[in-house]
């Protein structure tokens, strides 16, 4: 790196006269970064600052803790609890099912069709979210959905009930649909890092399958598994579109509470409550992603 920095130009013989031009050139090369920094500043940094400052600003523009206090009202605490439950449940379900799928793929031939198609399909399905996914489930389990009609006609059972699909249980099912493939994508590399030699070594020493997993496999995979689960948590916690299209009544989770706050800005002070909610989301996601980054680093030590 240092060599390539020095490579243009002759070897430095006189530090005194050459130091200044080089520093000047350094500053002028910073100019090349200006368009990017300005763009990211306007469309990423300014919005973030607006959220953070707005969370602590009253409708008159003076600093206040009122919006953050509003976060402790029961409805908002409930929304956070529901959001965290939804993200936690779907992260664990997605992580377990995704890890199982990844494991069955890894034990197949390494460059076979199975593996290629599962990882391609996962890449595609993990992106499948939002309005279209919500409608896919409406077509399956909605009041006139395929399965609903099928069970009604053949067994006389009403599986839609009072509309669980449009509330928290429905969100759990639908979120799991994009969580599982995401898990397959992020967990496959870790499973690949598990070398067959380790299993052979364990067997050579007389270890059983259970002992191999108990003392070698699980301890090695644990950081990656937990890290991936955290990533899934953040993924579900940040999701908005699927819930917005599916939930028609009320605002059970935080992203929908933010929509409520934004769209009812006419109520004085509501806009900044939206910003406080957004700040709350940033804090949760930042903590989770910090844990993810730490666990990734531990994973890299053995399975990189």
């Amino acid at each position, binding site marked *: 790196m240092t060599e390539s920095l020095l490579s*243009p130009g002759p070897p430095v013989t006189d530090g005194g006269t050459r130091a200044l031009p080089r520093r000047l050139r350094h500053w002028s*090369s910073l100019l*090349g970064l200006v368009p990017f920094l300005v*763009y990211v500043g306007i469309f990423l940094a300014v919005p973030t600052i607006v959220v953070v400052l707005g969370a602590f600003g009253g409708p008159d523009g003076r600093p206040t803790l009122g919006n953050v206090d509003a976060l402790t009202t029961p409805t908002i605490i409930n929304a956070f609890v529901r959001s965290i439950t939804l993200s936690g449940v779907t992260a664990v379900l997605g992580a377990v099912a995704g890890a199982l*799928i990844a494991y*069955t793929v890894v034990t197949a031939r390494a460059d076979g069709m199975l593996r290629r198609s599962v990882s391609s399909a996962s890449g*595609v399905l993990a992106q499948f979210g939002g309005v279209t996914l919500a409608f896919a489930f409406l077509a399956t389990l909605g009041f006139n*959905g395929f399965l609903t009609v099928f069970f009604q006609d053949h067994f006389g059972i009403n599986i839609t009930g009072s509309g669980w699909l449009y509330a928290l249980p429905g969100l759990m099912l639908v979120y799991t649909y994009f969580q599982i493939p995401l898990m397959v994508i992020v967990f496959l590399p870790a499973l690949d890092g598990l070398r067959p030699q380790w299993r052979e070594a364990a067997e050579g020493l007389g270890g059983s399958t259970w002992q191999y997993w108990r003392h070698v496999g699980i301890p090695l995979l644990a950081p990656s598994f937990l890290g991936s689960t955290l990533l899934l948590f953040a993924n579900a916690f940040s999701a908005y579109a699927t819930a917005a*299209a599916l939930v028609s009544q009320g605002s059970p989770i935080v992203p929908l509470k933010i929509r409520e706050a934004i769209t009812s800005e006419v109520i004085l002070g509501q806009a900044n409550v939206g910003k406080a909610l*957004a700040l709350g989301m940033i804090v949760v996601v930042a903590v989770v992603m910090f844990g993810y980054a730490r666990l990734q680093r531990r994973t890299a030590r053995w399975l990189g």
Partner: protein
Amino acid sequence: MAGVTSRRRRRQRVLRWVVLGTATVFFVLPMFAMLEFTTRGMNGTRTLQTWRTLFDVPLLRANYPELWVGLKASAGLAVLTVVLMLVLLVPTMTWVRLRLPQLSRLVEFLCLLPLILPAIVIVVGLAPVYAWVVYLLGDSSLTLTFAYTILVLPYAYRALDAGLSSIDVRTLSEAARSLGAGWGTIMVRIVLPNLRNAVLSAAFLSVALVLGEFTIASLLNQSNLQVGINLLSKRNASMSIAVSFAALAFAFILLFLLSLVGGRRGTRTAEEPA
């Protein structure tokens, strides 16, 4: 030992088919249901009426204006976002590699930042910024390009970074410079052609992301495909589900093409570092 291994293999094979079979049913069922739902006719018959309307452009325009507007907006946004993303990232990332390697971590951090800022959070802070954008550029759905370019940064950055790592930008650009090329020529005629696969990956990912975006468009009161589908569902469920399926199929094709492009870079196997 051989007996143990073959018994394990058999057990693994049974587990594999049970797990993958269940997963396939779970993942295919909603898509099958969409097809079933959109082909329902009167009294249990099947009809392709909805699908015929979908591919009949004049009829679609006349009967479902909200969908048509959204479709046009999304197509424009996909193109503009890819262009803006490339114009913003390729020169910056090349420049950082050549002149400012000490700032590469900063650029990486900024590009990956949207991963930890949920779109619903960004849109809250974007409202005042967009008040200015609309004031300066007029109220058009195409102004969403600016926000979408931020959303695609992490994915585009990773794709382009992988591409840039695989070529020797320094030697290439110094060779071009010594032959008298300016920076513009280097970008367009040296760097971009060498990054073809990375640029394709970044572009495909961006298009897939833009076509699926709903949060920012709907909360900034702009139109795009997903907003159109959502509006449509209020008066014609069958049509909105048909469009969802079509959009999905299109995104699948796009991402499958992407995995083909990515697959040619060669699979990296876990090898023992020397």
